[in-house]
């Protein structure tokens, strides 16, 4: 109880509450505009939060992170365009409901499911926090190295069909982090004797280039989309009642969201996929999924909103971000010399609980805001894309230039902007670069520290303090998980290849080709056999040819 009270004390400041309000309302607005998204907004606002108190800065960013998915459901339901990437599944059942005149019901249900997901995950994590506080100190350098490696591996394998390029880009991110003065031996790495490279490549500059500027270039080169908006009439309160009729779907989806959110690199998409599949398989009307099923909408929205709070667990407990948004938030911690990790859980548990309470409050604020302001809010969907591009370009300047007032930073950000633009055009993920940069730095430091007393490979999993050579259970578990992830990935690749081969042969064109190939092969074998028989015949009856 004391812990909760001291956490409330941290939050009970006008600047924190104002930041929470601004973050949550801003997040909903940003989420509701297709083409902007929380990553762009957080990247732009990041340098501005450096001058604030850590709790104020983090509350703004948390507000945007936690509320953007609420806003993202509005265009997903009304115009079949997800406001944020994670609202893509919402379009499956939300838009069909709109087409049959149930837009109000769909929106209300989406808000209620999102609210349930958000609240459910925060309550789970507040209850889970004391256990986490006991487990977190068991993570030493080796465990954190392995957890970071596992996070990076999961990010790579999560990009199904693009794992190779995702791995290459993650390596590129690790490389970017190594550029500059090496912190232990003070040797230069890949600076090419350029003074502007001695300080290394700034994470914020890369983030702004890859997420904000690239999005601006993408929108500026694109076309405006014509939006036909459905008018909403009546209140939006009936969704809570309808949600109460599906407690099982909501509960299971929330649990998937919490579990997937806690694993670095997995996140919303896997949580949504699992929840949606579960809801469809256990539904009495599975045929409605994809055609306006309320259960489908609940599963999608509950799962994605349960993730943000859970995603803070690896960040706060181990200092390991699981996705781009939490990686950006990590830089706020570093700027204020607040080092997330086991020590934070041991020494500043009230700070951690305060962040969770902020998330709880945020969900209430957003729900109230949306219930009363949706009719006005849907107008932001109509903002033309190219105007948004111009706006993001101007806003990106604030983000990059306010860091160090450096033209070089802006030039580097512009280069990464073009790189990110190319990646966007090719549908190649940019997230592995950011996570490579952040997790690469963590892995370098932790591996160096962890290997100091390690002589052989098995020593890595032993305590090794004096005569004590007991196993480090978490290190062993993490190592087994890494091996498990690799085995599952390679098995999936093998199955995909097998399926592709089968699919190739099952087409008419392929079977005709195969038939022709068999026919040619048969002719060839018959010809060869004839030749051999003739040769054999010649060998035993040499005169027979002479007569012919």
């Amino acid at each position, binding site marked *: 109880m004391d812990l909760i009270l001291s956490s409330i004390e941290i939050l009970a400041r006008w600047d924190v509450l104002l930041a929470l309000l601004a973050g949550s309302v801003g997040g909903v607005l940003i989420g509701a505009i297709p083409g902007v998204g929380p990553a762009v907004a957080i990247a732009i606002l990041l340098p501005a939060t450096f001058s604030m108190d850590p709790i104020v800065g983090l509350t703004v960013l948390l507000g945007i992170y936690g509320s953007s998915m609420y806003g993202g459901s509005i265009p997903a339901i009304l115009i079949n365009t997800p406001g944020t990437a994670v609202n893509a599944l919402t379009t499956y059942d939300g838009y069909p409901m709109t087409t049959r005149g149930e837009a109000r019901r769909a929106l209300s249900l989406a808000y209620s499911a999102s609210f349930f997901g958000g609240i459910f995950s925060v309550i789970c994590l507040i209850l889970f926090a004391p256990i986490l506080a006991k487990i977190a100190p068991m993570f030493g350098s080796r465990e954190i190295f392995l957890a970071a490696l596992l996070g990076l591996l999961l990010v790579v394998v999560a990009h199904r069909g693009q794992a190779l390029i995702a791995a290459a880009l993650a390596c590129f991110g690790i490389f970017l982090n190594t550029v500059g003065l090496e912190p232990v031996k003070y040797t230069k790495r890949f600076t090419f004797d350029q003074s502007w490279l001695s300080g290394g490549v700034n994470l914020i500059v890369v983030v702004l280039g890859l997420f904000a500027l690239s999005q601006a270039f993408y929108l500026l080169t694109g076309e405006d989309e014509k939006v036909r908006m459905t008018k909403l009439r009546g209140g939006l309160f009936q969704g809570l009642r309808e949600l109460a009729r599906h407690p099982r779907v909501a509960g299971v989806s929330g649990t998937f969201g919490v579990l997937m959110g806690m694993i670095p690199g997995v996140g919303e998409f896997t949580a949504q996929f699992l929840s949606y599949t579960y809801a469809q398989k256990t539904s009495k009307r599975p045929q409605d999924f994809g055609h306006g099923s309320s259960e489908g909408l609940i599963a999608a929205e509950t799962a994605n909103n349960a993730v943000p709070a859970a995603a803070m667990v690896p960040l706060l407990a181990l200092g390991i971000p699981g996705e781009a948004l939490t990686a950006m938030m990590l830089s706020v911690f570093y700027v204020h010399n607040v080092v997330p990790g086991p020590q934070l859980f041991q020494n500043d548990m009230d700070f951690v609980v305060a962040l969770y309470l902020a998330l709880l409050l945020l969900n209430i604020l957003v729900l109230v805001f949306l219930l009363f302001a949706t009719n006005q809010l849907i107008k932001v969907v109509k903002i033309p894309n190219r105007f948004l591009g111009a706006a993001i370009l*101007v806003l990106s300047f604030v983000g990059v230039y306010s860091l160090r007032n450096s033209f070089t930073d802006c030039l580097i950000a512009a280069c990464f902007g073009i790189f990110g633009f190319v990646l966007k055009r090719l549908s190649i993920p940019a997230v592995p670069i950011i996570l490579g940069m952040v997790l690469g730095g963590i892995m370098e430091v932790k591996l160096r520290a962890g290997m100091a007393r390690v002589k052989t490979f098995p020593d890595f999993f032993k305590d090794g303090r004096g005569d004590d050579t007991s196993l480090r259970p978490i290190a062993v578990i993490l190592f087994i998980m890494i091996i498990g992830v690799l085995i599952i990935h390679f098995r999936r690749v093998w199955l995909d290849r097998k399926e592709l081969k089968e699919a190739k042969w099952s087409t008419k064109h392929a079977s005709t080709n195969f038939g022709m190939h068999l026919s040619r092969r048969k002719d060839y074998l018959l010809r060869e056999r004839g030749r051999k028989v003739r040769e054999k015949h010649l060998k035993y009856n040499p005169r027979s040819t002479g007569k012919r």
Partner: protein
Amino acid sequence: MSSLEEKRFPGPLRGQILFAIVFLVAAVLLLSQLGDQTKWMKRTKFFAQPRFWPMISITGMVIFGGLHLWKLPRRRFVRADVVEWRVWFFAIEWVLWFLLYVILVPIIGYLPVTMVFMPLLVWRMGYHNKRMMWVSVGFGVAVVLFFKAFLDVKIPGGALYEYLPGALRSFFILNF
């Protein structure tokens, strides 16, 4: 390679080949510079070597980048690739706009440059009506007021502000 693999490829195929080649060539070039740009220290463990992580990361870039190129469903250039490269090339225009904005702000000042830059960019985008012009000016002013005056982000006052009379000069430097 069959068209089935092309159909199943996650994302568009246009431009992929050039990206993969450029990425691989860049990675190979970086690998060739590894010995020159990093140091190998004596009496230092393998994992603590300054060269260790650059070596791991660049080798990873070469291997995975190479495998990505090898696994592309189409490894030849077609007309669609050229169209895509043109799109990439013409995006440089927006980079130039951005850099021009960056150059002008410390000279002329954040508020005046933003108030002119935003409508100019909007005009270039093809919005030629008065309403959009005013909206863009308003947006520019709002951005400056929010970030510079309200949030107090570190953007220096324009060199031209120095010519403003007494109190107005410091007011402009502080807020705009």
